[in-house]
Every structure is written in C-alpha cells, then in structure tokens.
C-alpha cells in the first residue's frame, strides 16, 4: 500500500526535521511534496535560529571568570540547541547539525573550555570561521552545513574543539614515517570519511601506514595560543610552518604533497580497485541513508548516493546538498526507498528526536501556528539534561569519538525507563509555568473540554502517533480515561484534565509506536 500524500509529508517532516504538527502537515500538503522538499533543501530562504545573548556574551569572558559559570554555560548551550531544534524554520539544517555532531563526535569532556563546543556547533551550521575564531552568521566561505565535503574536512580539521579533542594541536614533525601524534589522522579516515572497510565491497580502505603518513601531513595544524594581554580561550586555528612536515608523503597509493590538502584530496577521490564508486561516497551514502531512511540499506541505494557524491552524472562532486536532494525528491531509486512502506515508521527515534518531537507537538500554539520556545526554567533544564543522560544521548558529551550507536541501540531497559520517566515528568510532573506541557491550552484550542473519552484518545493519537491506533490499544486508553482513581478524593471533574489527560500523554509516549518515527 503506497503512502498517501499526508503520510508522505508527515514522514518527510519527521525524518528531515523533528516532526510536524497536523496544522503544519496540512499546510505542506497544500504546497505539495516537491515544494516541501525544496523548502527543506534551500534552507537559505528561511531565517536562521536566533543566537542566545547570554551565551554569546560569555564568549568574551576571561577564562577565570568563565570557569565559575561553566555549568550555567553548558546548561544554557544544551537548552539553546534543543530550542533551536524545536523552533527552527530550517528543520533540515538542524537535523544535519545533529548528524555532523554524531559523525564528527566531539565531547566537552575532552576540551579545555566548553565554549569551543559552542563554536563547533556554529561551525556545523556554517556560522564559524576557524581562521579568525569568529562567529559569522553566516560565513559565506563555510562549506557547512550542506556543502562540499572536501572543504568540510578542512573546516573540521581546523575546528578548535576538534584540534583539542583528538590532540592534533600537539602534532608536530617527527620523522618520515609518522608525526608526533596520529590520533586525528586515524579517526579522519576511520570515522569521519571512509571507515575501516569499503561499505559495499567490504575490503580495507587504507593501511596502518596510510594513517601514519597522513599524520605527517597534518603536523603544524594547530591552535593559536596565548595572545598577549588577552586571557581568552583557544578558539583560532593557525598553521605553524616551523613544526610542519612538508613531505612528500605516501598516502592511499599516491606519492607527493606538501600539506594536508594532499590528504583531503586523496581521501575524497579514493576508490578501491575495481570499484565504480568512491569509498567516501559510499560511506556517506550509507550514513546519510541510515540516518534519514532505514537500517541496512541495499547496495544499490548506497551506490546511487555515492554516484551523486562522485559527480558521476556531471554534477558538482562532493556535494552533501545533492545527496540530500536525491534522498528526498521523488523519482529515483533512493527516494523510492525513502518513501517506501519499509521506511515508514521504521526508524527508532533518538532521544533527541523523542524529546524535541514531544515539545514540538505538545507545546504547539495553534493561534501563532508555531511551537512555543523552550522555557529557560532551571527545573526544566535540569530535567532535560538528566533525561538526555538517562536515555543515552547527552548532547555535546558523546560517549566516545565514534558517536552514538543508533537504531535499536537506543532501546534497552534503562534507556526505556528514562524515556518513560521523562514523559511522566514533562506531562505530569512539571507544570506549564515550569516549562512542562500546557494541557489546558491543548484542551481549549482543540475543543476538547466537553469531549468524550474516545474523542480525546483519537485526538492525541493523531497528534502524537500520526498513525491509527489498533482497536485494542484504543480501547485500553479509553478504559484508562474512564477508570476511577482508587482514592475517591482524586475523582473530581477538576482533576480529570490534570490526572487523566496528562496520564494519557505519558502513556502514549510509552507506546512502541511513539518510539518509532
């Protein structure tokens, strides 16, 4: 059974964004699928998220003074990012910022200063220039968020947080085999661009020696330290020629080069013997498709995306935007899979998708036509951070450089309990003024005040699940609304909304269907 227009657009907006309210879906249905894809891909026509002035002002604090406010800054940064995902007009950019954070996983836990992580987040959005250490909204030279991957590798390598996280700021000329530190060179190949093996051909992409030679080319790519009379944190890339090894290098079958450009070029062009597609094209095709589509994609899908990356049909090579357009625009083998029944509701929501999606749908103001901003209430921020930790996706603190394992790895007993208890906390623990769910507004804006139990259940299923309930589940939820509390004093009509409707939201958020996107 092919998906109908409403389902297709709801599906697209769940995957290329963080889900949409039925009002938003109806608007996009009226616009049509192709125009909706265009709105996502050509994000420049919509405004960027607003910076948080509190965070921005803390960028200029001297290190000593900043250190006393470290916790406040991290909490504010988490809230700002989640709020950006909830309120964005550029859902695909937000999704890709999350994608880059997982692919190029960097943790505050390995950094001298958490403000570097804020700069990295702006870098992933295309709003940072490592050569100057400054935020520019936008930076016209930046290849992020959807541009040329060859240049993305360069902006990644120069990123201040990354320079510290994988020690490349220390990497200096040593000998003709290796630099003083091979940590970044290894992950550049293994995690950030091509993987240990060709995704399709399953042959090794590189040798141990390629890593060691690449580390030579990356020597002297370091951070500008100790600007005189300024106690600012390290935030600016600098090329230190005195400690750079000018080659030539032997890397991925090529000999030559005087700098890391040689390495980046070799990486994006690398093809294993007898293979039609590049190793990087396949790696990114695979990673993008499992992020937006489904796990274990067929080799034809990976190869089709790799062809786009390689520019096999004459298009600009290395373009992330072209790959995304291929996934979402109907009329090719990749998008056919993306809109297939196999893909529908077959993606386990990450904790971020779970949290952001819930806020987008439940705190959507039908009058303004947008979701509310996430409150800055401290209790809410603490609840969110604890929830992210408990669900296994503490943004800005990935467990290691390989990022989070997605898909079914998001589902285990402890992560489940954290999801269910978070749902309980925002639906029934936190009140609207604390940043919880404004249930009264939902009841009023949707004419639910005098509605029957079955009408209320149907409303929330359409809002939250965007798929019909089975008859058994529907009846179970209706029975819940009708079942009186054991404690007679709780059974007042006034308590119905607070006790039962909030309970209903909690319960829907524990259903298997709600864990899936």
């Amino acid at each position: 059974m092919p998906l109908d227009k409403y389902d297709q657009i709801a599906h697209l907006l769940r995957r290329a964004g963080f889900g949409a309210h039925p009002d938003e879906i109806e608007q996009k249905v009226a616009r049509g699928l192709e125009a909706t894809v265009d709105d996502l891909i050509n994000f420049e026509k919509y405004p960027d998220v607003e910076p948080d002035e509190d965070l921005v002002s803390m960028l200029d604090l001297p290190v000593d003074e900043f250190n006393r406010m470290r916790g406040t800054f991290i909490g504010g940064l988490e809230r700002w990012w989640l709020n950006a995902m909830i309120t964005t007009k550029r859902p695909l950019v937000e999704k890709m910022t999350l994608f880059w954070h997982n692919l190029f996983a960097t943790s505050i836990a390995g950094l001298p200063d958490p403000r570097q992580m804020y700069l990295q987040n702006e870098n992933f959005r295309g709003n940072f220039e490592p050569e100057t250490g400054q935020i520019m909204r936008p930076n016209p030279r930046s290849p992020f968020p959807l541009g040329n991957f060859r240049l993305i590798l360069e902006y990644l390598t120069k990123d201040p947080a990354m320079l510290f996280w994988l020690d490349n700021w220390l990497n200096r000329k040593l000998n003709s085999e290796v630099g003083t530190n091979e940590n970044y060179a290894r992950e550049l190949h293994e995690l950030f661009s091509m993987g240990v093996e060709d995704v399709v051909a399953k042959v090794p992409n590189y040798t141990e020696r390629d890593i060691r030679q690449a580390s030579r080319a990356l020597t002297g790519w370091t951070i500008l330290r100790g600007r005189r009379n300024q106690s600012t944190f390290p935030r600016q890339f600098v090329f230190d020629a005195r400690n750079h090894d000018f080659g030539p290098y032997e890397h991925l079958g090529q000999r030559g080069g005087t700098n890391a450009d040689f390495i980046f070029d070799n990486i994006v062009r690398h093809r294993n013997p007898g293979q039609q597609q590049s190793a990087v094209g396949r790696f990114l095709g695979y990673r993008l498709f499992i992020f937006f589509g489904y796990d274990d994609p067929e080799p034809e899908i990976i190869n089709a995306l790799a062809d786009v990356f390689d520019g096999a049909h004459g298009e600009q090579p290395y373009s992330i935007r072209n790959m995304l357009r291929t996934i979402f625009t109907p009329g090719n083998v990749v998008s056919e899979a993306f809109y297939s029944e196999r893909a529908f509701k077959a993606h386990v929501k990450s904790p971020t998708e779970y949290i952001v999606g819930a806020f987008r749908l439940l705190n959507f103001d039908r009058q303004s036509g947008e979701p509310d901003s996430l409150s800055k209430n401290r209790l809410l921020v603490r609840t969110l951070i604890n929830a992210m930790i408990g669900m296994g996706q503490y943004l800005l603190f990935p467990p290691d450089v390989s990022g989070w394992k997605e898909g079914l790895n998001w589902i285990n007993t402890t992560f489940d309990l954290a999801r269910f208890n978070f749902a309980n906390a925002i639906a029934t623990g936190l009140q609207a003024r604390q940043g919880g769910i404004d249930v009264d507004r939902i009841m009023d804006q949707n004419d639910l005040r005098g509605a029957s139990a079955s009408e209320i259940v149907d409303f929330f299923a359409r809002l939250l699940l965007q798929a019909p309930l089975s008859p058994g589940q529907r009846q179970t939820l209706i029975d819940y609304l009708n079942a009186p509390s054991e404690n007679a004093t709780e059974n007042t009509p006034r308590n119905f909304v607070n006790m039962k409707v909030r309970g209903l939201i909690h319960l829907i958020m524990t259903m298997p269907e709600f864990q899936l996107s």
Partner: protein
Amino acid sequence: MGKTTRREFIKKSGFTLVTVGLSGRAFMRHLAMAANSTLTQAAALSENDRTLVVIQLAGGNDGLNTVIPLSGQNASLYRQFRSTLEIPEGEILSIGTDAGGTGLGLHPSLAPIKELYDQGRMGVIQSVGYPNPNRSHFRSMDIWHTANPDRPDATGWLGDYLDAAFPSNDNPLIAVSLAGGRLPLTLRADRIAVPAIGNVETYQFQTDPRFPGDAQNRIQTFLALNQEGAPQRVLYEQIRETALEAFESSVTLQQGIQRYTPDPNITYAANNPLARAMQQAAQIIAGDLGTRILYVSIGGFDTHQGQANRHAQLLGYLADAVNTFYRDMQRLGKDDRILMMTWSEFGRKVRENGNQGTDHGASAPQFVFGTPINGGIFGEHPDLTDLSSVDDTKFTIDFRSIYATILERWLEVDATELLGGSFELIPFL
C-alpha cells in the same frame, strides 16, 4: 525467582492485567528451547551459582606501563622506548619473575591489587592479543566482544553463552550491564535480553506523585499497551518486549537491592566511577537475584598525550574498585563465587609518541581476580627486541584462551562450540 513465565511473574507482583486482547506471544519467546546441542545438555547439568564480573578498560590500556619489566634486556629497552613515561624503578611494585626470567612489577597505582596478588587472589596474564591486530578502537573492541577476529558478528561471547546455557530463562536479571546504561556487545544475545542499568536507585517506572490513587491504573494500562503484538513488525516487537522487560526487571531489582546494607569499613570512593558501578554490582549480588554475569566499564585509557597522570589515576581507580569490591564480597560471604576479569581492546605502542603519550598498539597484559583462582603470572613478558613492522609487541596468548578458561572452568560449559574453536586453557582456574 524460579521458573515462572513472565505472565505469572506479573500476576504475582500484583499487577493484574485489565484489558482484553492480550496475545501473550512476547512471553513465549524465552520459552523457546535451544537447538538440541550437547552444550545445552551440559549446561542443564551444571547449574552453579557462580558470577563473573567483567571489567572493561575502554580506550586501550598501556600494558607496558601496567606490568613493567624490571630486569634483563626488556627492562633496558623499556627505559629507552619510554624516555618520558618510564616509571622509576624504585616505585614499581615487584611481583616476581615470569617463566622467561624477566622480573616484573606493577605500576605504583596498583598497590591495592598488589595486596590481592600477594594473597594469591590475582592472575597476571601476559601479552594477550590475537593475530593481525586491528588498531581501530571500535573494530578491536568488537573483536573482543564477539570473540571473532575475522568478522565480528551481532551477538557477544557472553550473550552466546547465556542463550546456550539458559534456554528457558525467566530471570530478568540473569545478566546485568552496569556500564553507564549501555548494553555492551559482549552481552548481546539472540534470545536473552540483558538489562542495562544506569543507576539502581532510579531504575523504576514512575507515575504522577500527585495522584497516587491513579498509579495502578497507569501501570496496568502501560503493561496492556505493550502486550499487543505485531509479529510482522520486527522493530516494533523488540521495542515492545524491551518495555516489558524494563518494567519486570525494575520490580525484581528494587525488591532485591533492599537486602544490601553498606559496611562502614568498606567505602566505595564517590569520585571513582568504576567503584560506584561495582558497588551497584555488590548490591545486586547481595540481593541473591541469580545474576550470573555483571559487566562494568571505565573509559579514558586512550592516552595519546599527557599520559602519565591520567594513566596513574585510571589504574588507581581500577585497583581501588577491585580491592573494595573484593573485601565487600568477603564480608558478605560471597567471595568464593565471584570471578573478575579485565579486558581492553589493545595495548599501546612500545615507543612513546612525541606528546608524552602513546598511540594505538597491540597485545597487552590482562588480569583475573578472585578467591577461587590460582594466583601468579601466566605467560611471558613480550620480547621488546622482537617488534612488529609498526613497533608493536607480538601476542603470545590468544584472548580467547582467557574466555575458554572461564567458560570451561568457571561457568562450566563447553567452550569449543561457543568460541568456534578450541583454545589452550590457562591454569588460573
């Protein structure tokens, strides 16, 4: 808990199900009998109450600065290769001489486990690795997790053990991961779902505290919503079953851990993440919950720069956590049924890098601890005059020999089938 079905379990716990349309199929999964292998039959005959505690040192522990050569050419080469990271000879805790005649000692931070060594409660297994060492953290971890250097697969070596040994398991806590809420590949099984517990205290299903009279309604509805199967939707089914397992294991856990009372003389250091996890392991063991495998993990061993202080701190965490846990087990009278083992995905380069750190290497020593073991040094220190083409030590003991020894002599199952080959046993058991 005895051999009850899940449905009986939920009934006994007082959570009666209110709705119609229960399929109950989820409950049948664990009743599926394993294939008629000799292994299963052997396992059925060897119900013991032993527990294995796996301690992962994530990031690649520097073996050469963990067990350090004190004599001969190895000692002089060690000082040459480690010009800034060498541990001064006077600080190394000597543990005697290996079969090859090399005097050995432990890093000074390991003093708390040197106590166990001196009591014969610790085994040092030298130069552990596998052929064609992989220097990717993630690939090498998967190799250790799955005991398969050729092509790591989807289930772990202890997950395979659980599936084979407990074909009709009903204990939701037969194995528990205490690795920060994550379920390591080692414990992934085809049929047995292992709970991951982030924190035993918060491992509960919460309802609205303002309306306690509605709590039963909510819990019953939650269970009912997760009862209805959709057999054609694999992902959905796994999510649904995990939700039930979460609830069930949390109820069992909360009942069990009440039995643990801390001893004022045994303090798990609050600033030591491994000690905190091992205290939770102690709570589970004290609860007599039938748990056979416990898994803890500590990260940070990927010391590419500024290694000395960080490595000393991490080894201190390990030694302190193991020592405290061991004494706690003695106090509880459980030490004779507990075996601990360490593993790390690789050792580090023999030659330090230019940043007072070390890059990814190959073989390294591993430890086992416990009252039941034969203490001592097993195997020999790697020959530092004979390194691989990228300056790594060559392994002499296959890591699957440690697994095989534990499977055969501690968990009492046939290791050959589980490991897909036979490996020489090591006489620490």
